[in-house]
C-alpha cells in the first residue's frame, strides 16, 4: 500500500492504495465519484477523461499513485452553486448529447482543447476530440457546442 494525498474537485483526500490501482477506480470505487464513467477500460473511448493538474488524461490509463500531490478535476467539479460552465451550457443548448455517457469525457477533453486553442477551427475541434467516442450524436452538435463555447470566456 502506498499513501497518497490527492485534491479532487476541491476536496483533499488522504488514502492508502495499491500501487496498481487505476485513477478511475480510485475516483469511482473509493471516493464514490461516479460522475466519470468507464467506457472501454483500454483508453480507446475517452469517456473517463478527467484533468490532472490542468491537463486532460484518460483516467483508466493513469495510476492513482501518479495523482499523489496533484489536483484532479472531474465533471462533477465544474459547476459552482448550480451555475454551469460555458461548455456545459453549450452542450445543452446545441443538443450535443443524447444518452450522455460520453459527455463527461467530451467536456473535459474540450476544456483541454480550448485551453490550447482558445479559438479553434471546426477541423481543430474534430482533431482535438478524436480520442473521444460518441455513439449517439454523430459529433456534429458536439463540434458546434465546442465552437460556441470558444466564443465565450472559458474558465480553466
Amino acid at each position, binding site marked *: 500500500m502506498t499513501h497518497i494525498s490527492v485534491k479532487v474537485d476541491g476536496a483533499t483526500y488522504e488514502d492508502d492504495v495499491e500501487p496498481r490501482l487505476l485513477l478511475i477506480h480510485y475516483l469511482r470505487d473509493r471516493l464514490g465519484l461516479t*460522475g466519470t464513467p468507464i467506457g472501454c477500460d483500454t483508453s*480507446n473511448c475517452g469517456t473517463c477523461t478527467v484533468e490532472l493538474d490542468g491537463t486532460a488524461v484518460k483516467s483508466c490509463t493513469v495510476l492513482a499513485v501518479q495523482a499523489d500531490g496533484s489536483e484532479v478535476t472531474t465533471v462533477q467539479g465544474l459547476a459552482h452553486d448550480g451555475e454551469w460552465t460555458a461548455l456545459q451550457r453549450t452542450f*445543452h443548448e446545441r443538443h450535443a448529447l443524447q444518452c450522455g455517457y460520453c459527455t463527461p469525457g467530451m467536456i473535459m477533453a474540450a476544456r483541454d482543447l480550448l485551453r490550447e486553442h482558445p479559438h479553434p477551427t471546426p477541423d481543430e475541434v474534430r482533431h482535438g476530440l478524436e480520442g473521444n467516442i460518441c455513439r449517439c450524436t454523430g459529433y456534429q452538435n458536439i463540434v458546434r457546442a465546442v465552437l460556441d463555447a470558444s466564443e465565450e470566456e472559458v474558465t480553466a
Partner: protein
Amino acid sequence: MSETVEREVGRARYRKEDAHLITGQTNWTDNISVTGLLHIAILRSPMAHARIDRVDVSAALERPGVIAAFSGRDVAQEMGSLPCAWPVAEDTVVPDHPPVAVDEVRYAGDPVAVVVARDRYTAADALEAIEVDYTPLPAALDIEGALTDGAPLVHSDKGTERLHVAVRGRAPALRPRGRPRQPYGGVHDRHPADPGDPGAGAPGPRPGDGGGRGGGARLARGYPAG
C-alpha cells in the same frame, strides 16, 4: 380580444434530461453497487483457431478472494448453448454457441474460462493461475478465403461457412433497371467491442422493492438506470 397561441409544431425544444448528464450526477448501471457484489474476469483465447485439450481452473480457485472459477465445459453443463434468437432465413445454419468455448476456440478473444471474485483486481489476477493447453488449427482470415473450397471451417460439424443466402435490398422489380445483383465483397476488420454502446445489467432487487423478494435485475442499453 383574441389570445395568440404559439405554434408547437416545428418549435425547437431544449432537452429536459441534460442537467444530470452534464454535471456527472446520473445513475449509470455501473454505479449500482449491491451488498456482496462479485466481479468476474474472463480468460480469452490468444489464438484465432485451436483445439482446447485441457482447462484447469483449480489453482485459480485457491487464490484468496476467489469465489468460483469455471471452464467452458462447466458453463455449458449448466447453460447449454446460447439460442439463436433470430434465424434470419429458413436455410440459416445455426451452429452450437456455448457462452464459453468448450472444445475449440474460433477467434482470438474467444472466452475460455471465467473467474468470480470479491473484487475486479483479484478476479483479473486469478486468470494467470488457469492452465489451458491448445493445439493450434489453421484459420481463415478473410471472408473470401473462408468461402473457398477446402478452407478451414469455423464450425466444422456444419460442413460449410455459408450461414445463409441473403437477398439484399428491395424486391427485384424495384431494383434499377440494368443493374445486376452484386455478390457481397466486404472486408471485415478486426472488429473490437463498441465502447460506449454496451448493454448493461445490475442484478438484485431495486431499493424499495421490498428486499426479501430476492430476484430481479435492472437492465439498460447505454441508458441511465434508476
